[in-house]
């Protein structure tokens, strides 16, 4: 399949964030910074998303939602935790309803610290995520090739 890097579609989900990081995330995606010139689309649909931006910690109410959003995204996918709350739970860590950072529920690939995370840091995180996503896509392709080889071998053995 080769180069998929040119059309990373984002899914942005607000966990239990204070909205600080969300404002910064949306600021990165406004026409001013023109993320679309890199093919980035801020899609609201997990079925069509490649990169999952999550802000805020995980609490008992949204844990199932986050898990479902992650499961609905087709492979290859990359998760970026934006802001210190999504990384570790942040200042809310000791609250009775907070479970912790995003990695308590789903595997997180890239951590973007900050309170709130700076737009530069978020863009840097997304750029790293795109590279990782490409690497994952290549790996997926290789695995598929190996599987096809195995299928052929099995067919030969049957004959």
């Amino acid at each position, binding site marked *: 399949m080769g180069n*998929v890097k040119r059309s990373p579609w984002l899914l942005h989900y607000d966990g239990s964030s204070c909205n600080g990081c969300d404002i910064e995330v949306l600021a990165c995606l406004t026409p001013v910074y023109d993320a679309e010139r890199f093919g980035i689309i801020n899609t609201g*649909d997990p079925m*069509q998303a490649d990169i999952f931006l999550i802000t805020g910690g995980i609490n008992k109410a949204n844990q199932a939602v986050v898990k479902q959003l992650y499961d609905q995204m087709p492979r290859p996918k990359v998760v970026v935790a934006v802001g210190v709350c999504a990384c570790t739970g942040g200042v809310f860590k000791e609250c009775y309803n907070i479970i912790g950072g995003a990695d308590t529920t789903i595997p997180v690939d890239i951590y973007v610290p900050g309170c709130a995370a700076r737009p530069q840091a978020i863009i840097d995180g997304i750029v790293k995520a795109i590279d990782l996503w490409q690497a994952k896509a290549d790996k997926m392709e290789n695995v598929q090739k190996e599987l096809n080889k195995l299928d052929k071998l099995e067919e030969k053995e049957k004959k």
Partner: protein
Amino acid sequence: MTYRIFGILAFLIFAPLLGGLLSGLDRKISARMQGRIGPSILQPFYDVRKLLSKQFIIVNPAQIFLVISFLATVIVTGGMFFGGSDILLCFFLLSTGATFLIFAACITNSPYSNLGASRELLQMMCYEPAVLLACIGFYLATGSFNVSDIIQADLPAIIKTPGFFVAFVFILTIKLRKSPFDLSTSHHPHQELVKGITTDMGAKTLALYEIAEWYEHVFLMGFVGLFFVCKNPWSYVVAVVAILATYFLEILIDNTSARVKWLTMFKLAWGVTLLIAGVNLIILMVLA
């Protein structure tokens, strides 16, 4: 006969390329209108290639079948049109394709998808009268429903059917699912219906849907061009210019208007159709 086969083959091969480029051009011009650089013109092709390489999650096994049916009917519609066949039949087939798409959106459990499907039905109700009237306009102007006869006329059909053309261009905004009539599928995120009819489509299914849309857009633009085509070879140049102007107008409308409610869309679409196309129809009937 060879012309017909040539037309069908040209449509099959070049329509997705042209449709993709049109879609890319749309995004580029939209970006420039908003003061941005915008994506590459080839962006829709990159998107489809990526979608084809992604993991295929099956929401409902029938969904991919229905989307393939949608694609197949759209291809047959365009093939018939560029093969010089009956325009009425083309639009009946296109409606069948739209029905497949509505079913594909209905069979999933997502409320957004279902909402998109019911809105798509409303949109069909709004644009069908203008489409049928446009076909009747061609018959009254040239004496035939067949594309092969219409393009052999002495004068382009637009001279006798300006009202039908205006009504058709008006409902084209609904048919292309552009703002202010993007009720069934919002192309801007974080709206009340996520992605409407395409909410539960991902990977391969969405790629097929996109390709079907490219074919559909080329067919619709071909129909816009048909208004300007006649025996004179120069009329084809005029038709291409008219198609590009119409497409630019659609992009302009898309970028300068906000979504309306369905009742407003219904009143506007039927009002324009009955008033402008209807008056044109009466004039043509009286003259004939």
